[in-house]
């Protein structure tokens, strides 16, 4: 309750309001996912106090996700893999002239799932903190290895390409001055590189520049067909009856996936889609615009993204590209998430959690009335749209340090992003590797320093050993299943 008294000041509410609107505005733009939205809007918060900034972020975060689903439904261009399931039925509903109810079930479903998930985060976080306080460096290192394994190897179409992306990120994370020995590593005498590579630069390069190069080269001459919103936004009684069980089921599916460091909202959204398809009383509508098929995945997405705040806040471990960018935003404020944060800066934590509730409410009251405006954003011609995206994205990366080196890196990462998109190499592991790699290195070296250099420390501590064993199992499981099938 104390948290609300912090975030409910008029000024902070205003920041939340601005964050929600901007987040939705940028999130609606095709090809701009939530991670890029947060990265692009990061410079806007540099002069705010941490509480105000975090509240604005909560708004941006939720706005970006909702904006993305609007685009997904009307244009059938999922901005991120977690929206693919929403696109399946959502775009069909729009084609059948039911875009209004589809958008409404998304908005209300996001609200319901987001609110329940935030309550669960509030209840769960202190419990996790209790456990996390008992963790030593070895346990932390093992947890981070687990997070690496799930984001790189388990999700995505290929283990080897996921791991390649992760190791690229880890390598980039090495660049700069080693925090423990002040040794400069892989900086090639470039002073700007000594501070390390900023996650925002990598995220903007891979997502915005890479995307612009890719879409320009392969999809700039395509006709895009946007569905119009015909009729009202309101859901009929039947729509409500079919939506709410889907929202609740999806929350139950999405939240656990987000809160264990299992990475990504992709699996729970497809799982929810499959569950709704199986349980529905109208199986004939699936594939032609069934409202459960929109309500479920969208709610699952929101629940899982909110659930991802548990590992992020209590352990300091991001499990998605968006969470990685959020973590770097925290670091810019000198805030290092982890169990100590709950003890040292309780005001900030509870203020943030309270602002998540507020962000959810703001989203609901803002977005349905403003949907007409978001649709107008989608009618911006593609050349101007991508030119604008690049102007704002490069601004976000440049204003961090006012450095031309950052702009050059942006282009290099853009070429990398183009290649990764073209040859189907996932991008998120690289971003998570960049920010989590140095943290994992620190924990590993601490653990080894305590054990006086004996590497068996990771395998003799029971918790650390079991987490590492689990990670290893996850890594080799697909190969074993495949071999078993071949026999």
């Amino acid at each position, binding site marked *: 309750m104390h948290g609300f008294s912090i975030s409910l000041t008029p000024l902070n509410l205003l920041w939340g309001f601005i964050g929600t609107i901007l987040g939705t505005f940028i999130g609606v733009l095709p090809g701009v996912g939530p991670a890029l939205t947060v990265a692009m809007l990061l410079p806007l918060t540099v002069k705010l106090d941490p509480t105000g900034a975090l509240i604005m972020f909560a708004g941006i975060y939720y706005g970006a996700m909702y904006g993305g689903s609007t685009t997904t439904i009307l244009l059938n261009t999922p901005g991120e893999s977690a929206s693919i399931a929403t696109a399946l039925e959502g775009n069909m509903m729009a084609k059948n002239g039911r875009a209004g109810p589809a958008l409404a079930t998304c908005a209300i479903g996001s609200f319901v799932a987001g609110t329940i998930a935030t309550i669960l985060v509030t209840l769960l976080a202190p419990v996790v903190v209790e456990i996390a306080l008992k963790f030593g460096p070895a346990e932390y290192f093992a947890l981070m290895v687990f997070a690496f394994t799930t984001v790189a190897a388990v999700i995505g*179409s290929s283990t080897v390409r996921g791991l390649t992306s992760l190791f690229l990120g880890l390598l980039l994370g*090495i660049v700069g001055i080693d925090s423990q*020995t002040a*040794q400069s590593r892989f900086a090639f005498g470039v002073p700007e590189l000594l501070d390390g590579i900023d996650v925002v630069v990598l995220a903007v390069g891979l997502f915005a520049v890479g995307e612009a190069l890719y879409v320009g080269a392969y999809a700039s001459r395509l006709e895009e067909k946007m569905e119009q919103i015909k009729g009202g936004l309101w859901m009929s009684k039947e729509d409500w009856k079919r939506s709410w069980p889907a929202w609740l089921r999806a929350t139950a599916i999405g939240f656990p996936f987000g809160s264990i460091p299992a990475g990504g909202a992709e699996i729970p959204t497809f799982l929810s889609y499959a569950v709704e398809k199986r349980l529905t009383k109208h199986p004939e509508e699936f594939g032609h615009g069934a409202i459960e098929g929109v309500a479920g995945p969208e709610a699952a997405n929101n629940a899982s993204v909110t659930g991802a705040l548990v590992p992020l806040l209590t352990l300091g471990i991001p499990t998605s590209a968006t969470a990685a960018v959020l973590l770097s935003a925290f670091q810019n404020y000198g805030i290092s998430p982890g169990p100590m944060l709950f003890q040292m800066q309780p005001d900030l934590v509870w203020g943030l959690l309270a602002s998540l509730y507020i962000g959810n409410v703001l989203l609901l009251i803002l977005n349905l009335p403003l949907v007409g405006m978001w649709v107008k954003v989608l009618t911006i011609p593609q050349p101007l749209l991508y*030119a604008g995206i690049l102007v704002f994205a490069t601004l976000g990366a440049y204003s961090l340090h006012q450095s*031309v080196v950052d702009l050059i890196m942006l282009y290099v990462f853009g070429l990398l992003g183009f290649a990764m998109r073209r040859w189907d190499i996932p991008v998120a592991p690289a971003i998570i590797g960049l920010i989590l790699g140095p943290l994992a290195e620190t924990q590993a070296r601490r653990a080894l*320093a305590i054990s006086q250099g004996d590497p068996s420390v990771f395998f003799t501590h029971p918790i650390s050993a079991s987490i590492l064993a689990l990670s290893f199992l996850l890594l080799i499981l697909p190969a074993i299943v495949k071999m078993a099938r071949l026999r």
Partner: protein
Amino acid sequence: MKAKPGELILSLAVLGLGISAAVGTSRLPSAGGYARIGPDLAPAVIAGGLILLGLWLLYETFSGGWRNAANDDATARGEHRFTPSAFIWVSAGLFAQVVLIHRAGFVLAQAALFACVARGFGSAKLARDFAIGLVLGLSVFFFFVKFLNVNLPAGWLKPILGGAGI
């Protein structure tokens, strides 16, 4: 089956990156603290990982191509064939920005970027696009400098923009 050139180049690039990282690692001091855990431990692990992954990718390249990869035929992906001009214009815009931002200033650099990218995406109205970019750059400039107190370079426009910016 013949190896696809793109996959071959990328696999070799990953392998090469791993080898370069290994070479760079060998130049780092290893003795750090009493626990013998120096700043070269993590780079060594990462370099080793990249080399292994490069070899793994090479193996996939030569044994039927990368697994579950994107379709090489752009039309089968629902896209059109590679358009070099778009790629070049977007790149040119970003180069222009790098060159201009500390000379001509933020506003002109962003306007040039805007015009080039729009051109790359098929817009034929270069002058109109430059004008839109100029307006966009100016509004961002004033918003950042006056409202957020974040300085941006004014460059050649300094006489017009007055004391704003750096």
